[in-house]
């Protein structure tokens, strides 16, 4: 074997070795959670890569809890509302910030960026007062409001950047065709902004779906909780026992929708929809 061929082989082995390492680090915890969720409670602490006995008891236990079903429903309601509101406001704001020339535009953009830098804890007590004042405590509305506040800066920034990249002449062509700004946004820009909207919408959804601190603080009763809090509050038979089996089962249940969403929207994100708009 010549040294060049050896080097080439070594490079390939090294590359795939690194890939394998990344995949293991990223996927193994999830894999282990799936396995754990499928084990009977007696086997929980036996270390093994493939369970010797299968058992769906943990899933049955989770799904027979009414409060957990309610929590999933709350999470879906909160996350989809956040995505919808954030995209609606984000698109209209990005049109103004990306397309309309007005004094103080960059100041507005910087303020929006600045807002997104506050840590959650810093605004927690203030936001709590706001939510009490708006009578949204222990109500999905309170969560929708607070998540939207934290999602909007990112949404607006990404969509504004994307909006600016759309050719100016496209908008002018729409104006010549007699389109109002609203028609331009909905009929011309929106179809072209799918990739950006899918990306930001997905990230907003994930953030709202996973959020814990606000969800814990702004809700009181089981019927209003979202999934992360519900999982954390799953209790075992006694105060000294953590119900790992049901916790893992619940984690798997709430992770699957995210994985499915990412796989669905992946194509949208990748596809270049602006091809053919202008020569290039």
């Amino acid at each position, binding site marked *: 074997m010549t040294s060049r061929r050896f080097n080439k082989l070594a490079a390939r082995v090294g590359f795939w070795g690194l890939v394998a390492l990344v995949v293991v680090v990223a996927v193994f915890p999830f894999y282990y959670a799936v396995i754990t969720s499928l084990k009977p409670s007696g086997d929980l602490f036996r270390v093994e890569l493939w369970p010797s006995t299968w058992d769906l008891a943990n899933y049955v236990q989770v799904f027979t809890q009414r409060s957990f079903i309610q929590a999933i429903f709350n999470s879906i309601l909160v996350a989809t509302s956040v995505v919808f509101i954030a995209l609606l406001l984000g698109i209209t704001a990005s049109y103004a910030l990306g397309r309309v020339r007005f004094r103080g535009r960059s100041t507005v953009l910087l303020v929006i960026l600045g807002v997104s830098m506050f840590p959650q804890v810093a605004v927690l007590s203030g936001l709590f007062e706001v939510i009490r004042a708006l009578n949204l405590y222990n109500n999905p509305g309170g969560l929708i409001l607070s998540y939207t506040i934290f999602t909007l800066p990112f949404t607006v920034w990404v969509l504004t950047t994307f909006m600016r990249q759309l050719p100016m*002449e*496209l908008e002018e*062509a729409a104006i*010549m*065709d007699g*389109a109002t700004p609203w028609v331009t946004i909905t009929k011309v820009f929106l*179809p072209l902004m799918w990739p950006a909207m899918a990306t930001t919408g997905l990230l907003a959804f994930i953030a709202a779906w996973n959020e814990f601190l606000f969800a814990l603080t702004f809700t009181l009763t089981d019927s209003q909780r979202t999934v992360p809090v519900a999982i954390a509050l799953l209790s075992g038979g006694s105060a000294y026992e953590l119900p790992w089996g049901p916790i893992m089962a619940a984690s798997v249940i709430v992770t699957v929708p995210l994985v499915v969403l990412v796989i669905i929207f992946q194509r949208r994100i990748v596809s270049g929809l602006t*091809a053919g*708009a202008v020569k290039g």
Partner: protein
Amino acid sequence: MASVTLDKINKIFGSTHIIKDVDLDIGDGEFVVFVGPSGCGKSTLLRLIAGLESISDGTLSIGETVVNELPPRERGVGMVFQSYALYPHMTVYENMAFGLKLAKASKETVDDRVMATARILQLEELLDRKPKALSGGQRQRVAMGRAMAREPRILLFDEPLSNLDASLRVQMRNEIARLHNRLGSTMIYVTHDQVEAMTLADKIVVLNGGRIEQVGSPHELYQRPATKFVAGFIGSPTMNFMPASLAGQAEAGCRVQVEGIGELSLPQAAGEHAAGAALTLGVRPEHLRLEAASSDNAFEIVNVEYLGNEVYVYLEPMAGETLLIHRSEAPSRWQEGQRVALVPDPQHVHLFDADNRALKASRARAVA
């Protein structure tokens, strides 16, 4: 179809004055070309007419209506953009129907108009395609179709051919000219390419620095440029300019002294210019004759370009560095390195004063 009248139109962007007191009459059915170097304001002027920019001062009328404050859709104008700006997510049909649908035309009307437009532009086979599946020339035609489908009174073109390659450009130029003949609608066309301007226009408007330099037919602009700028801009290769001075009045015209050529007797009237005034002599490359050099009035041939049907000879004056160009039919007997004398044709010579204005021919010898 309608006429367009610009009355003292001004456009100011912040602190820059882009369009300065432009007056222009465009007749019904005329093909008008705005031409000029980049930054001369020609596109801005078109966008003012389209309604994409607001007019700072002056009056713009289309037909009998003052349209200063009207939005584009109420002006009855259609525009073809340089980048085409087709809606990429819509088919050719939808692209052309978009404006009609927004105008709340009935389904049958939309269909009729789109099909009629598609027939004129030979787009019938492509109606279901998306823009990305079209070639450059096809996109260009769709862009024109979209502008035409609403049957605007005026069609505006903003450098529509600059994205096409050379041979396609000639072909589309031809199609636009035939389209104008067929539709007979008023068209305003912006280009920086003087060949497009010369071949398409009924009337050329030469713009420079936000002002109109000259308005006229291609023939007028070529034969009687009003300013040195127009003389240099129209025609390829460009006109030769040589410094000259007024030697005196003559019975019918004037006499000028040109460095390297000698004294010429020209038909232009000196007017109020006194003897000794600095002038510029302009001669087109085809209106020069080369002769074997005598002693002092010599130019050196630095390059000979053979183009098949004609030959460009580049000449370097003994004093001064601007090259002069001579054009003649091929074959040419001149060769690089030879010394020659220049003899301009006095009937086709232009004179410009220090303000770059052309001197008019004196009445006695005015040529048609």
